């Protein structure tokens, strides 16, 4: 079905970001656009929805009317993106979604890691390390975002099932450093028997939490007695460095590099009219059907001191 190679004129690709004030999103936007260019497509400037689902719908319509032939979308919300996907489909513009799966609607491919699974992995690493009991501070992201909710649900469900004796102290932080830091400070100083902290984003929370522990005199190295176990999500370069320094126990690294790489790959393929089938891939993942769509379910890696220097982690790739 490749009678018309689309490279007669280069393929224009639009990238819609949900917001850019989170470093994770910012890096993903940059890396994806780079991968798009590497794949020989023409990247239009990314759009920034500033966390507003309505704005994202606007952005995508604008990208399409500006001539985008294919879209990579990182949705602000799995539901609110549905009519936008329908609109794109009606204009014959294929879409690849990364990081978040849509609730419905047609897309060429979904590239994501399982955020509930990420929460679960953090829970398992953490639960085992503290011996299934104690008090855990859970610094939640913005619960109005799908990822924030999934990381909460995955963590809480796993805790309930596997470590029912653990007490969870939940604090909403809205992906805001100052809120996370203040909540951590209050809880750390008022809970002498705190055993662990779960952070839903190391790019937003880790620096502040380490600082809180330090000023409270509770910052100890991994393995020392009374060490407060720290688990984070994202796996930013900073987090990997702190793991190497024995200050952070576990980071569940998102496959950000793979999001970028395969987002671009599938986008190009979709623009060229290719279709995909379910089954294992060449990159250690599996394409699974979800509803009418296919999803390349990328693995999230649990990073500890043992593998913190692994060059395949995205956090080890940004430095050049």
């Amino acid at each position, binding site marked *: 079905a490749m009678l018309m190679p689309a490279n007669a004129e280069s393929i224009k690709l639009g990238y819609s970001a949900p917001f850019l004030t989170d470093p994770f999103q910012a890096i993903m936007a940059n890396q994806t656009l780079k991968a798009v260019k590497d794949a020989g497509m023409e990247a239009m*400037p990314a759009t920034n929805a500033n966390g507003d689902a309505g704005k994202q719908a606007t952005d995508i319509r604008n990208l399409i009317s500006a001539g985008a032939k294919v879209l990579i979308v990182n949705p602000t919300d799995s539901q609110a993106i549905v009519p936008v996907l329908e609109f794109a489909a009606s204009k014959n513009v294929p879409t690849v979604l990364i990081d978040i799966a849509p609730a419905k609607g047609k897309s060429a491919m979904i590239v994501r890691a399982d955020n509930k699974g990420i929460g679960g992995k953090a829970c398992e690493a953490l639960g085992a390390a503290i011996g299934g009991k104690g008090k855990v501070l859970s610094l939640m992201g913005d619960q109005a975002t799908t990822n924030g*909710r999934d990381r909460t649900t995955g963590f809480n469900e796993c805790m309930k099932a596997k470590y029912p004796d653990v007490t969870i102290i939940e604090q909403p932080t809205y992906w805001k450093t100052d809120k996370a830091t203040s909540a951590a400070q209050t809880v750390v100083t008022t809970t002498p028997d705190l055993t662990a902290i779960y952070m839903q984003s190391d790019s937003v929370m880790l620096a502040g939490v380490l600082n809180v522990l330090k000023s409270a005199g509770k910052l100890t190295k991994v393995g020392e007695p009374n060490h407060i176990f720290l688990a984070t999500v994202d796996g930013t370069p900073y987090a990997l460095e702190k793991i190497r320094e024995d200050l952070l126990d576990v980071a569940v690294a998102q496959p950000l590099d793979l999001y970028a790489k395969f987002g671009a790959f599938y986008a190009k393929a979709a623009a060229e009219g290719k279709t995909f089938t379910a089954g294992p891939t060449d990159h250690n993942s599996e394409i699974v059907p979800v509803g009418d769509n296919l999803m390349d379910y990328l693995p999230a890696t649990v990073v500890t001191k043992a593998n913190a220097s692994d060059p395949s982690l995205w956090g080890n790739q940004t430095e050049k």
Partner: protein
Amino acid sequence: MTNISLEKAAIARPGQSLFARFRLRELVLIPVIAVVIVIGSFVSSSFLMPENLLNILQQSSELSILVIAQSLILICGKFDLSLESTVGIAPMFAAWLMISDVSIGGSGIGISGYAGIAVVLATGLLIGLINGLLVVKLRLNAFITTLAMLILLRGITLGITNGQTLFDLPEEFLYLGNAKWLGIPASIWIAGLLFLFFGLMMRYHRIGRAIYAIGGNPEAARVAGIPVERITLGVFIMGSLLASLAGLLLTGRIASVVSSQGQNMIFYVFAASVIGGISLNGGQGRIIGALTGVLLLGLLQNVLTLSQVAAFWIDACYGAIILLALIITRLSGETPRA
């Protein structure tokens, strides 16, 4: 009085000159808008395509309804920051009532789509009533009252659904935000008709004139027999009602209600109203001016998306152009509105 002297008076009177009339505050933005359009057509060949222009209008429709709401309230000499949270909470509450599946965040009640629309508007009405009573009866400061209300309503929106997005809403509920009438999105028609209606009302109906009088000098308005409290209350209610309608349209457009719906919109509502000439001190400005403000922001947003400006710098450009528009409207010979 004879007609003769009338004519004489009309000639002799040193009134506002024709020149001054042409420099109406409301027209100040027109050249700016023209420049943006010209730039837009250079930036992207698709800019002037009818489809894109309809995009702009549709995308601006919710903002513009909020701008009408805020303009009424500002002209009346008050503020309503909570409009943005009404955009979220009114459809959220209705959606919660409509969804019968508790597991996806619904209430389990499952009211119909039409009842849902009624709930949206009723919620708006109630919020407006509460704001209005606090401001009019308790004589609380409107700015700070509605700021507290904003925080409260945002919190309730989050609380109702634990942050979940509500979807699978009835067709009827989504209709207005989706439908096209005569090939043009319904929301454009609605926004347009509202502009026409409120534009005429504020200019030619005595309630409109009364709102200007209240905003200009509430005590004088009271003395002139204008029921200041009743009208102010009415304006708050109308404002929230319009905000809930905007929320309904937005919900139709994204086929779901997100708990962050409306967030940060209030900044742009103020920006559009004020560069459109609505004074923050009350009693001044016109609905048509506010319309030019909305159009400018909508065009800008569109042109910036189509342009080659990097995403990270788009917000900065946006801010810079708003500031510029303010300076231009100021330098174009307007008396400052303190």
